[in-house]
C-alpha cells in the first residue's frame, strides 16, 4: 500500500509543479514558421525574434530610440562617430556572454538584408570592437537615423545573435534561434503551423526603466509563452471567451461587439498610432500608369470612407488619412493632401483618357483570402467599373499575388497594373523606415516608382539636424511622393487586441509588433 501511495505521489508531484507554472497562451495573426527575424520581413518572425533576441536600442511609444542592450553611448559632435558600451551581465541562452564580436557580426548581417539596415550601412564606413563590451561605428556622413534604425520594431528588427549564427549567409535562415532576450525558444516543442513555445529566461537582466512600446524593461512575467496559431477566427473568439486562451492579437472587427460584451474579456488599442495603413500600388513600368497623369487620375477613385467602412466598419477603429505618412505619427503632415479631396469617377476617366488610355484592360491582382486586402480590392474594382474603366480582375490567393507582383512584364505576359496591400503603422510613420514611400526605380519595391527627387528627400530626412528640419523635409517628401503617386492611401485602421483581463495584466501597447514579455498571469 505504501509503495502504491509513493508511486501515486511521484506521479502527481510533477503535475502539481506544472500546475503552478504560469503559461500565457496567445493567438497571434500568423503562425511562427520562420525563426530568423532577419531572413524575412514577416511580422510574426519578428514577434518571435523580439521574445528571443535583444536589440541594442528600442523605439519607445513616441518612436524615440532608447538604449536596450546598450548601457551607455556617445555621439561625437560632428555626428560621425558613435561609441556603444554594452550593459553588464548580458548572456545568450546557451550561457555564453554577449560580446561586441556578436554584435558587430549581427549588425553586418542585418545591414546586408534589411532595407533600413542597408540604408544605415550605406553610411557606415567601419564598425570596430574596442573590447568585449565596447565598439565604435564610424559614418561617412552625419546620418541622423542611426539609433532609430537600430531600435525599430516593425519588420526585421536588428536582432543580436551569437557570432556563429550571425555568420550565416543573410539569404539563408539561421539554423538555431539562440538569443539573449527575455524568453528562450523551445525548439523541441515547436510544431510549425500550430504552436511555438518560449520559456522564461531566468538569467535575463531587464533594464530598470518602465516598459514603453519596444523600449524599457523587458521583465518576463510568465514562465512560459505559447504562441498558438488558430486559422479560424471564430474558434479563437470562442476559445478566448471560454478562457482557453489569454490573448488574441488581431480579432476580426466583426467580432468586436461580441467580445466587448464577453465576461472577463477586454479590448485594448495596440499603440499610440494606428497599426495598419492601406495602400494601392500602381505599376509605374507599364501603361497606362507609366504616365503620371494616369496615376494621378486614380486619386479621384479613392473615397477612404468607402474602403474603411468595408474593411473595418466601426469608426472607432479607423481613420481617414489623406497622407502617405501615418496620421497620428510624429511626421503627419498635409503635403499633397489636395489630391485626396475629391471623389469623381467621371474626372478619373477623363484624366485617364487625356493620358492616352483607350479602354485597354487594366489588370488588378485580387487576393481572395485576405481579411482586409480582399474587401479593399473589391471596393477599388467597383470604383474603377463605375468610372467605366475596363478592369481585368485576376483573382488568386495572397501567395500568388506576392509572386505575380514581382513580375515586371506587361500584364498580358503575366505582369500586372494594380495590387492592393497594407503597411505597418510604425514603419509608415517615418520616411526612412517607410520603404513603400521610396521611389528607387529598379531597386525599389514592386511597382517600381522612379523619382530621384523622392530619394533625395528621404536622404535629406536622414541627414536632418533636428526635429523641425525633419518635419519640413517630411512635408516636402510627402507632397512630392503624392505628385508622383508612389502609392494611393486608402486610410488607416487599428483593430484592437483582445485579452482576458480577469487573468492577465501588464500588456504594453505597441503598434506593429506585439510585446508579450511583460504580461503577468494570475
Amino acid at each position, binding site marked *: 500500500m505504501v509503495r502504491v501511495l509513493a508511486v501515486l505521489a511521484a506521479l502527481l508531484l510533477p503535475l502539481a509543479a506544472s500546475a503552478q507554472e504560469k503559461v500565457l497562451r496567445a493567438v497571434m495573426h500568423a503562425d511562427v514558421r520562420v525563426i530568423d527575424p532577419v531572413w524575412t520581413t514577416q511580422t510574426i518572425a519578428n514577434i518571435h525574434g523580439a521574445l528571443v533576441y535583444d536589440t541594442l536600442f528600442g523605439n519607445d511609444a513616441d518612436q524615440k530610440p532608447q538604449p536596450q542592450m546598450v548601457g551607455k553611448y556617445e555621439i561625437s559632435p560632428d555626428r560621425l562617430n558613435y561609441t556603444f558600451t554594452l550593459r553588464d551581465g548580458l548572456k545568450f541562452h546557451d550561457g555564453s556572454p554577449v560580446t561586441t564580436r556578436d554584435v558587430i557580426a549581427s549588425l553586418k548581417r542585418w545591414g546586408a538584408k534589411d532595407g533600413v539596415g542597408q540604408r544605415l550601412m550605406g553610411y557606415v564606413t567601419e564598425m570596430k570592437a574596442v573590447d568585449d563590451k565596447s565598439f565604435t561605428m564610424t559614418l561617412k556622413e552625419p546620418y541622423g537615423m542611426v539609433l532609430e534604425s537600430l531600435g525599430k520594431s516593425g519588420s526585421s528588427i536588428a536582432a543580436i545573435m551569437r557570432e556563429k549564427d550571425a555568420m550565416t549567409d543573410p539569404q539563408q535562415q539561421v539554423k538555431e534561434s539562440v538569443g539573449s532576450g527575455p524568453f528562450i525558444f523551445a525548439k523541441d516543442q515547436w510544431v510549425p503551423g500550430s504552436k511555438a513555445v518560449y520559456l522564461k529566461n531566468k538569467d535575463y537582466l531587464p533594464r530598470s526603466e518602465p516598459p514603453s512600446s519596444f523600449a524599457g524593461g523587458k521583465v518576463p512575467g510568465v514562465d512560459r509563452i505559447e504562441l498558438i496559431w488558430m486559422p479560424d477566427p471564430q474558434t479563437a473568439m470562442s476559445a478566448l471567451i471560454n478562457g482557453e486562451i489569454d490573448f488574441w492579437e488581431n480579432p476580426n472587427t466583426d467580432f468586436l461587439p461580441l467580445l466587448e460584451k464577453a465576461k472577463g474579456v477586454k479590448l485594448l488599442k495596440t499603440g499610440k498610432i494606428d497599426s495598419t495603413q492601406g495602400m494601392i500600388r500602381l505599376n509605374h513600368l507599364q501603361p497606362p500608369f507609366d504616365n503620371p497623369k494616369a496615376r494621378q487620375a486614380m486619386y479621384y477613385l479613392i473615397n477612404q470612407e468607402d474602403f474603411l467602412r468595408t474593411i473595418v466598419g466601426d469608426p472607432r477603429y479607423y481613420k481617414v488619412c489623406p497622407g502617405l505618412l501615418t496620421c497620428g505619427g510624429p511626421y503627419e503632415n498635409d503635403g499633397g493632401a489636395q489630391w485626396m479631396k475629391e471623389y469623381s469617377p467621371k474626372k478619373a476617366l477623363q484624366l485617364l483618357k487625356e493620358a492616352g488610355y483607350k479602354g485597354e484592360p487594366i489588370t488588378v491582382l485580387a487576393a481572395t*483570402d485576405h481579411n482586409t486586402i480582399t474587401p479593399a480590392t473589391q471596393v477599388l474594382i467597383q470604383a474603377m467599373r463605375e468610372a467605366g474603366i475596363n478592369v481585368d480582375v485576376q483573382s488568386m490567393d495572397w501567395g500568388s499575388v506576392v509572386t505575380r507582383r514581382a513580375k515586371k512584364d506587361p500584364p498580358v505576359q503575366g505582369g500586372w497594373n494594380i495590387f492592393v496591400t497594407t503597411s505597418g503603422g510604425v514603419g509608415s510613420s517615418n520616411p526612412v523606415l517607410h520603404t513603400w514611400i521610396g521611389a528607387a526605380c529598379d531597386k525599389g519595391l514592386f511597382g517600381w516608382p522612379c523619382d530621384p527627387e523622392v530619394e533625395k528627400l528621404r536622404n535629406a530626412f536622414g541627414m536632418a539636424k533636428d526635429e523641425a528640419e525633419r518635419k519640413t523635409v517630411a512635408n516636402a517628401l510627402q507632397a512630392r511622393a503624392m505628385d508622383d503617386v508612389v502609392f494611393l492611401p486608402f486610410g488607416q485602421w487599428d483593430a484592437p487586441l483582445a485579452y482576458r483581463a480577469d487573468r492577465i495584466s501588464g500588456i504594453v501597447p505597441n503598434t506593429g509588433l506585439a510585446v508579450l514579455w511583460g504580461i503577468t498571469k494570475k
Partner: protein
Amino acid sequence: MTAYIIRRLFAVVPVMAVVALFVFFLLRFAPGDPAAIIAGDDATTEAIEAVRVKLGLDRPVVEQFAVWVWGLAHGDLGVSIFSNLAVTRLIAQRLEPTLALTLSTLFVAVALAIPLGVVAAWKARKLVDRLAMGFAVLGFAMPVFVLAYVLIYFFAVRWQLLPVQGYSPIAEGFWPFVQSLILPSVALGVTYMALIARITRASMLEVLQQDYIRTANAKGLATDRVLLLHALKNAAVPIVTVIGIGIALLISGVVITETVFNIPGLGRLTVDAVLKRDYPIVQGLILVFAAVKVVINLMIDISYAFLDPRIRY
C-alpha cells in the same frame, strides 16, 4: 494469399512513382513562389531572387526533381522551406492527432451507423426506417463546420462541458485526450455515420431477401441472431469497403474539422503547406497519403476473404 499480398505490395512502387512525378511537376507549374512568401511584404525583387537562388528554386525543374528523387531513394523526404525542419518530423508531429481523430470518428460513426442501418433494414419502409434514414440524410447534408459551430456553442461556450479547441496528446492524460476529441469526432462522425448507415441498410435489405435468411427465420431463430449473425455478416463486404475508404479520407481530408477545432493534424499541415507553397511538405504528404490509401485498399481486399469465404486470391 501471401503471394497475393507480396504482389500487391510490389505494385505500390510504380503507383508511388507516378504519384511522385505528378505531384512534383503539378506543384512546379502551379502559380506561386515560396521565395516571395518567405521574403515578406517589404522585400524587393532582388531580395526575393536572392532567396530563390539560395533555396535552389532557380535551378531547372528536372534538376530539382532529380535531387528530390535522390533524397527519396535514401529515405529522405526533404526539409521544409520555411521552418528548416525535416518533413518526416513535421509529419510525425501531426500523425497522432490525425490518427486519434480518425479512429474516434470511426468509432462514433460505426457505433451509431450500423445499429441504425440494421434497424432501418429490419423495419424497412416503416416509420422507424423513415426516421433513421431521415436522420442519416440530414447528417450527410449538414456541412461539418455548421454542426461543429453548433456543438462548440452549446457544449463548450454555453455549458462549458468540453473544450472549444485544441488537441491534448494521450501522454498528457487520458481524460483530457478524450475531452479534446469528443466534439470533433461527433461533428465529423455524423457525416460518416450517415454514409455507413445508408450502405448498411441497402446491403442488409439485399441480404434479408436471401433464402438462407428465410430458412433461419423459418426454423425459429431469434430476430437478433438472424439480423446480427446471419444477415449482417453477409452484408459486411460493402460496409467494410465504405469504412475503409472512410479511414483513407479521414487521414488526408479532415481539414475543416481540424481547422474549426484547431487540431494540428495532417489535413491542416497539407493546406498550410499548399498555401505557403512549401513544396517538400506537400510532396512528402501526398506520397504518404498515397501509401496509406494503397495499404488500406489492400487491407480491405484481404478482409473480404475473411468475411466471405467464397472470395479467394
